[in-house]
């Protein structure tokens, strides 16, 4: 049971990278980017193929991240230069990546059983698999969280945030909003691909279909974090004015809470096949929360 709880939290931390990527596009840039459905398995594919070739597992994660960044940049280019709406641009890249990912993997599924992964080094020190996952999860999440806090506090990061809030205002300050959008998408999909690589290594395989529904999982984490964590008055007091730090922490917590919810409903006997339906309903309910609250208030 403890093992189940620990590995659930570990899963939440690894998926938190995906959620942070979705947070960058959905909350900071204010676009729903579906590229993640392709860049997540792309990260898994790159990492898995390279591991089977004997490349250092950490290096494969970095290369996976670069692959994801390229995918994000492509979406950004389609959106800003070809003037195709962001949602559609993401769908186009996502579909294209399905073929690309098949090319990378050469087949639909690659097993990583008995191969070196980022976890196996820790695991071989006699630490249980679940704890190894948690250690890696904590380290990577903290590093990425600190990077995001730093980056979005720089002039460039602040400009990206302003682009999402009010493009006209930031253009008037001399910032090329197109470049900011491309940069944001690039960064986001980089983290999503890293998440894909780490998840693939943790579950011992990469699969062409593992990207299905990732955008919804990411959104669920972002929204659960906002609703259950960031809006709590105790938490708000704790973070004072640093609302950006709060948002980042909320996303990570949202991802962990989401995993706990999923583990719980599975434990209670929900058929795994219904998981995506369940998640979709959960996200739809959470997203419509403001509307519901408005209805209740009006009576």
């Amino acid at each position, binding site marked *: 049971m403890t093992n189940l709880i620990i590995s659930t939290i570990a899963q939440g931390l690894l998926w938190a990278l995906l959620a942070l990527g979705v947070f960058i596009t959905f909350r900071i840039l204010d676009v729903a980017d579906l590229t993640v459905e392709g860049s997540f398995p792309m990260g898994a594919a790159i990492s898995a193929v390279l591991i089977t070739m004997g490349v250092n597992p950490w290096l494969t994660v970095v290369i996976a991240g670069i692959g994801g960044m390229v995918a994000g940049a492509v979406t950004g280019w389609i959106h800003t230069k070809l003037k195709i709406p962001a949602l559609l641009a993401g769908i186009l890249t996502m579909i294209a990546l399905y073929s690309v990912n098949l090319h990378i993997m050469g087949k639909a599924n690659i097993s990583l059983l008995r191969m070196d992964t980022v976890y196996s080094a820790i695991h071989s020190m006699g630490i249980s698999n679940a704890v190894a996952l948690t250690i890696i999860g904590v380290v990577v999440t903290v590093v990425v969280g600190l990077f995001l806090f730093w980056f979005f506090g720089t002039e460039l990061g602040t400009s990206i945030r302003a682009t999402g809030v009010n493009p006209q*205002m930031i253009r008037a300050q001399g910032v090329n909003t197109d470049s900011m959008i491309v940069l944001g998408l690039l960064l986001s999909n980089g983290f999503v691909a890293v998440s894909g690589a780490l998840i693939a290594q943790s579950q011992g395989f990469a699969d062409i279909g593992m990207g299905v529904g990732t955008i919804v999982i990411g959104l669920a984490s972002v929204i659960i974090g906002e609703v259950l964590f960031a809006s709590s008055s105790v938490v708000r007091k704790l973070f004072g004015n640093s609302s950006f730090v709060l948002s980042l922490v909320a996303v990570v917590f949202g991802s962990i809470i989401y995993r706990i919810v999923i583990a719980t409903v599975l434990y209670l006997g929900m058929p795994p096949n219904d998981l995506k339906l369940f998640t979709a309903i959960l996200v739809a309910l959470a997203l419509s929360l403001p509307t519901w609250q408005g209805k209740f208030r009006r009576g």
Partner: protein
Amino acid sequence: MLELKGIVKAFHKGTVNEKIALRGIDLRLEDGDFVTVIGGNGAGKSTLLNSIAGVFSVDEGSLHINDVDVTHMAEYKRAKYIGRVFQDPMLGTAGNMQIEENMLLALRRGKQMGLSWAFKENERELFKQQLARLDLGLENRLSSSMGLLSGGQRQSITLLMATMLKPEVLLLDEHTAALDPKTAEKVLQLTDELVKEHHLTTLMITHNMRDALRFGNRLIMMDNGKVIYDVRGEEKASLTVQDLLERFEVASENTLSDRMMLG
């Protein structure tokens, strides 16, 4: 110095909805000219300001700011020469961001945004000083979200942001139209103060003829995509609202007869 030569701009070109918004604008503003712009709806006032700002490219003519040809320069690139305040108070500032964040972005207008930490303690002092002159108590609320402020407060901050780095040209597009009369007056007074203090070359669109006469050293009236009246100095100072109304009537009669002839 701002110089426009033969600026022509049409929208929906080549369709039945074609609308020629500017029909050859020649205009030269000397340094420190504070020009108020008046004219009826659809006269081309906003189109004029937007062409200067580079929101869209013009069809014909040339645009120079201090002898730099900006005719084909992208909007974000020419922003380094231009300070802007929009009609909608929500447009000039980023609502979900702090007052401080908005101001520090404005302080870097036209500069390359790099990877250095955006928040600097010495700049905070500058922001506080700037905000203190508004007399709205905002100097102690640097980390407040812009979205919590009223339209008048936001418009005042936008004005500070547009002038903090001295712009070569200040463009004000009916920036007090969405405010209540009392707030509008405060913002106008602040505008006048800032323009005089920094000796700013300014174009200010207004619907209020009294304001157009009260402020600035020069006034232009636009109609149907053209500047139909350009008056400055003593002559402007002696004008009355009645004079302007008569000019308007003459102008609109002319356009009316033009349209009847064409029809």
